[in-house]
């Protein structure tokens, strides 16, 4: 299953903020964490994370600092700020509202789940 681009883009802000709320982190590790959390279902194009981080930094939701990592290279670490936490709480409320809405309608639609799946699937299989 691949999640479509719009959903990935829309969810990037709360995901990045939430990961940074766990602990300060840097680009590569954030992407690893996303993979881990989504069980590999959310595939971000690695580079695209950085413009997102820079936008959050400009909006004051995260703060960045350069540190020398254990590898001896300079590495840019990001940490969440007060306004960032407030934004995360706000995003959470919005996503929960979306989630609740979808759950409600999906439950109404798909509650007789087995019969719904069986009907369209059968002729397709025969055709193939």
């Amino acid at each position, binding site marked *: 299953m691949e999640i479509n681009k719009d959903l990935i883009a829309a969810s990037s802000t709360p995901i990045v903020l939430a990961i940074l709320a766990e602990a300060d982190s840097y680009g590569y590790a954030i992407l690893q964490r996303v993979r881990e959390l989504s069980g590999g279902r959310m595939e971000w194009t*690695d580079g*695209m994370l950085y*413009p997102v981080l*820079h936008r959050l930094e*400009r909006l004051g939701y995260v703060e960045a600092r350069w540190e020398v990592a254990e*590898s001896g290279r*300079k590495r840019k670490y990001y940490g969440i700020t007060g306004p960032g936490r407030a934004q995360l709480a706000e995003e959470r409320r919005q996503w929960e509202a979306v989630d609740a809405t979808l759950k409600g309608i999906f439950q109404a639609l798909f509650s007789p789940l087995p019969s719904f799946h069986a009907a369209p699937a059968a002729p397709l299989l025969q055709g193939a």
Partner: protein
Amino acid sequence: MATPEYAASLDEQIDRWRSYLRRRQAIHSVDVAELEDHLREQIAGLTASGLASDEAFLIAVKRLGDLDSLSREFAREHSERLWKQLVVSPVESDEAKAWVRKEAVVAFALAVAAAMLIKLPALFGLDLDENAGFYARNVTFFVLPLLTGYFAWKRGLRQSRLGGLAAVFVVAAIFANIYPFTPGGSTEALTALHLPIVLWLVTGVAYAGSRWKEVSGRMDFIRFTGEFFIYYVLIALGGGVLTAFMAMIFQSIGMDIEPFFESWLLPCGAIGGVIIASWLVEAKQSVVENMAPVLTRLFTPLFAAVLITFLGTIVLTGRGINIERDLLIGFDLLMVVVLALLLYSVSARDPQAPPGAFDVVQVVLVVSALLVDAVALAAIAARITEFGFTPNRVAALGENVILLINLAWSAVLYIRFLRRRGTFSAVEKWQTDYIPVYVTWAAIVVIAFPIIFRFT
């Protein structure tokens, strides 16, 4: 793990990748460093799981995403870099070169058209000498519609929006010409001064195109305005030098060029220069972009020094500001200059840099300008009843209050930004949100003042 040869070739590959990335205007070297750290970490992870380093390099680069869309994302986030990107990147393909040439041709054609338009009324017996009022009120109509058309063409503006802009021009032309102004009166002069402000914004809507509703689109327009001003002044200076030489060499053969200069060179040059300056800003932004920060660095301390000396002198000598004549307009211009210095230095500033001595100077400049203006305002407020409400004074007073509010809140936001309590985007947003205030006031001056003050 990797052999030394492998390691060397990997470093070479990364070097090549890095220099390729650096050519992208939208990705700055700090970002390249960040991305390189990512790339190296990714390669290390992949080689640890058994891949050869060159394979790991390829996969890591591929995962980073295609460079075109990556630099587009960077440019979208850092719109001040997009500003350069717009100009610099297209010149790579033949098609893009053709476009640049086409744009130059269009700009020059429009400049010539504007220069001819300004001479058109003379054909109908409206000479510049005898109808100075008509020209002063209408001068913008000879050039800004063309400039708006240029941007509308360049940005591919929608028909409906273009229609709206055209309607504003028509309405403005009606207001500029239906009132029975007293020749040489203040309200006529005020209309001549304020109409360009309103119409410049109309041009701005075309300039920003579909990005007018966004902060970054309006901010680009503010930058454009500043750079347009610098280019226009440069063109005017060049024109002055050209004219001086022309006068001198023709003088040597006993010919006086003054009539030609007054009725052709000056009006046509001044009008055509508007289009040429706009086109230059579009085509050569990076030149001025490097000049403006230098100018602000140079003049911010000088202005601050002058204002502080002025305040000190007032305090020490106890002299009051003498606003017998319409000096207030001078203080308005001072506020505009201080605001421009603030805007330019903030927009040229690296938001990551810690506050330094220059930021202190900046704050000192803004605060001292606020104090000076407050003193001037107090002086005029105390004696306004004595002087009476002339149109000039009311207009200047209104502008002064508008600018004072803007500058005061800008100062608060700037100080917050320096103390890391606020963001730079707040300063930008405040400026871009404030644009309609100027326009509304200018529109009031154009539409209501002549009636209120009986066309005097």
